[in-house]
């Protein structure tokens, strides 16, 4: 930040937002209507979308294969708008391998599929700890992996956005796809918890 006259970080944020809102509208760069439309579209994305993908992958081997080969296409095929979003990568958990997603440099997250990232995902504590002590981090959520399962921490540093395809919990063979989707939480698709 090197603006001589204006120290941007010291400005009251609401005032700065109001000023930019007015300028962008006046210049035809972002109208209030467009901003409202984008807010609504972003609000429509939520972990429920990812949960639908996971549940379908659990029940449909062809969809699982598609999800792993081309996550973006898999999302689009379920009607999830990807609107020029970055490529979606899907990380397949196995009994021997558990994934944990983070972004140590900022907060990269598969927003188009899962919605806004949770507050904790963006925090300095999470970003610092995920790569250095992932098992301790999982313990913050009470998650303990079975013996013999290794953790692979995925640091989202570039053009992909990553979500976990977790293991289907035991005892769910009778559940419908809709019921399965209801089991899948945001935390499961980041990897701090296991679906139950």
């Amino acid at each position, binding site marked *: 930040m090197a603006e001589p006259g204006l120290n941007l970080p010291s400005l009251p944020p609401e005032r700065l937002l109001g000023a930019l809102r007015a300028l962008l509208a006046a210049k035809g760069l972002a109208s209030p209507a467009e901003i409202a439309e984008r807010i609504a579209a972003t609000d429509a994305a939520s972990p429920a979308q990812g949960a639908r993908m996971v549940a379908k992958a659990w029940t449909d081997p062809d969809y699982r294969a598609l999800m792993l080969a081309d996550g973006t296409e898999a999302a689009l095929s379920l009607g999830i708008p990807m609107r020029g979003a970055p490529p979606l*990568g899907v990380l397949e958990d196995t009994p021997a391998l558990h994934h944990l997603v983070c972004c140590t440099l900022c907060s990269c997250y598969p927003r188009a599929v899962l919605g806004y990232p949770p507050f904790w995902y963006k925090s300095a504590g999470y970003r610092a700890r995920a*790569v250095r*002590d*992932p098992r301790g981090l999982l313990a913050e959520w009470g998650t303990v992996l079975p013996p013999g399962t290794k953790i*692979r*921490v995925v640091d*989202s*540093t570039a*053009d992909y956005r990553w979500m976990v395809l977790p293991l289907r919990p035991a005892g769910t063979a009778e559940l419908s796809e809709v019921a399965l989707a209801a089991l899948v939480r945001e935390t499961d698709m980041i990897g701090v918890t296991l679906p139950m």
Partner: protein
Amino acid sequence: MTARLAPGALVRVRDDWPETRGKVHIRTPHYLRGRTGRVVRHLGDFPNPEDLAFARPARILPLYHVLFDQPPIWHEGSAGDEILVEIYEPWLSPA
């Protein structure tokens, strides 16, 4: 644009610190500099974020997923655990 590194290739991340030489935007985390890992796969080709960040023309670069062992990078980590990171080709050399 040919990706030069094959899946399974052992690679070393450059032990370089452009941060010390001026204003930069680097997407290779500090904890990987000078570390050795293994290429999992070529993820595709993308414009160099180090240039995009300054609105400069950006070369298209191969991007790889590279796998590292937790220790020795972090002694708090458990042996057998891993870190998987997207890294652009110029930061990697055969180890």
